[in-house]
């Protein structure tokens, strides 16, 4: 394992320190935590009280979540250890920092650990009379869903949920309508990922699983969770077809005639050039399938350390407002912006 680190166990605090030192125009650290909260002038100065939006989870998915804290997206974010849910005390600190008297919405990815830790934080906050609600992102359609299991994982689609809900909160939506909005968006968000090489957790020191020199894992999660099949590498166009077919089955009536936002998401070690080759195939095949694409992002948004591979997310835009929220201004490290001066 070769990584640019000091002590692996200091990775998360040093990374968070690096983020706030590099981008103080967006984020500051909440003392004694590895959580960050907005630090832009629109937030630190006088401003109308809005619903706080807080997310978080294990580290290793950067820029998710701290990289999406800022005007128009998250109010605060909590970073756990690598691939390990953060603890309730830290989430609670983030809730307090984000609360402006209008309540706080938690965006939780569907993992037992995250769900339980965010639940415990909610309990702590209720003692302070902060109204806290949560929505659980479970966009990974590679996993069979069932009422009797853990359900689907939350993966790359989370960034679109954070963008849309964050923009709505910025526009002044109340807690109740944010919950409704978030659940509706999650319902329409479907992702599948593929890995060419597994991620290496620094404290473990070797890849989570081994793939042959020409093998690919379909349906992989963002923590080295194995997928639904392992096969020989195929050309990008064929891969696009496989993933679009799988995702298309999740929408009643398939893809045809529907309007989508598309996210091609690199897992950390996949060059942007390859992501664009894949995006080209995806967009072409969507056009061929008579689907409309109204919004596209291509890049590393929800990564898995040094995993090679990518995921494809489709979000059916059943409400035109969602597209406005996707296009709304945002000033964060990871979504991109240039207006805020340091």
């Amino acid at each position, binding site marked *: 394992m070769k990584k640019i680190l000091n002590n692996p166990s200091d990775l998360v605090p040093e990374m968070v320190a690096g983020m706030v030192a590099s981008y103080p125009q967006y984020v500051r650290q909440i003392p004694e935590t590895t959580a960050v909260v907005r630090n832009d002038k629109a937030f630190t100065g006088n401003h109308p009280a809005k619903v706080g939006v807080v997310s978080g989870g294990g580290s290793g998915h950067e820029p998710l979540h701290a990289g999406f804290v800022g005007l128009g997206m998250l109010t605060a974010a909590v970073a756990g250890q690598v691939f390990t*849910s953060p603890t309730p005390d830290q989430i609670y600190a983030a809730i307090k920092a984000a609360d402006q008297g209008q309540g706080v919405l938690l965006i939780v990815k569907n*993992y037992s650990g995250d769900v*339980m830790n965010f639940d415990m934080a909610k309990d702590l906050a209720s003692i302070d009379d902060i109204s806290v609600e949560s929505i659980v992102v479970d966009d990974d359609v590679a996993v069979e869903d069932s009422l*009797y299991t853990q359900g689907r994982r939350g993966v790359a689609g989370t960034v679109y949920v954070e963008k849309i809900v964050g923009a709505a909160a910025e526009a002044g939506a109340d807690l109740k309508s944010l919950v409704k909005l978030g659940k509706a968006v999650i319902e329409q968000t479907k992702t599948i990922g593929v890995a060419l090489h597994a991620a290496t957790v620094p404290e473990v020191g070797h890849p989570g699983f081994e793939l042959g020199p020409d093998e690919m894992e379909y349906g992989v999660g963002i923590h*080295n969770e194995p997928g639904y099949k392992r096969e020989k590498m195929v050309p990008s166009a064929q891969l696009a077809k496989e993933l679009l077919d799988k995702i298309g089955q999740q929408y009643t009536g398939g893809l045809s005639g529907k309007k989508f936002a598309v996210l091609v998401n690199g897992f950390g070690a996949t060059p942007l050039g390859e992501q664009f080759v894949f995006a080209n195939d995806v967009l072409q095949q969507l056009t061929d399938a008579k689907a409309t694409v109204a919004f596209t992002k291509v890049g590393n948004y929800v990564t898995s350390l040094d995993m090679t591979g990518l995921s494809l997310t489709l979000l059916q835009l059943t409400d035109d407002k969602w597209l406005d929220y996707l296009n709304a201004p945002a000033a964060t490290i990871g979504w991109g912006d240039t207006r805020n001066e340091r």
Partner: protein
Amino acid sequence: MNVEQVKQWMQLYQTEIEKNKDYLSQLDTDIGDGDHGNNMARGVDAVAAGLAKDNPADLAQTFKSIAMSLISKVGGASGPLYGTAFLEMAKAAKDSESDIPTLLQAAADGVAKRGGAKVGDKTMVDVWTPAAQDAKAGQLNAANIDKLVEATKPLRALKGRASYLGERSIGHLDPGAVSTGMLLKTLLQATAK
């Protein structure tokens, strides 16, 4: 159970976890994300530091100190689960309960409620729930605990990360069940005399 016994229990558990850190992470690599050993090691270290710092006077405060250390240092799935177990024991101790079966029952119920898992879902609940019953029946011993842990092997996971593996989770021990087995066996050792 008294404060001294709990402290000894935690010492024994710390040693056991440190010895088995890599083993637990390996189990979690097979059907999870490979961090269970690290998570638990971080937890038991925090528990030791917390007890030294808090120097709790009674059983309730002792359990609460342990619970807070686990909740605020472990993270992941096991943090809130073990944290809840000790928080529930703290509550029971506050109500002047100190006998092991009653405390374990409170802990087991807390774990089951927090995670929403049932016996047979291939989680630590598969050890906690029947072990509490064994304790009530005066049959909590190392052999029975081992049996409960072993029994997770043929199961298909329905909760936690291992559930994403579906069929492929079959044939592996559940890491949380293994660490729960260690917790209960060190409890027996600490309270044996």
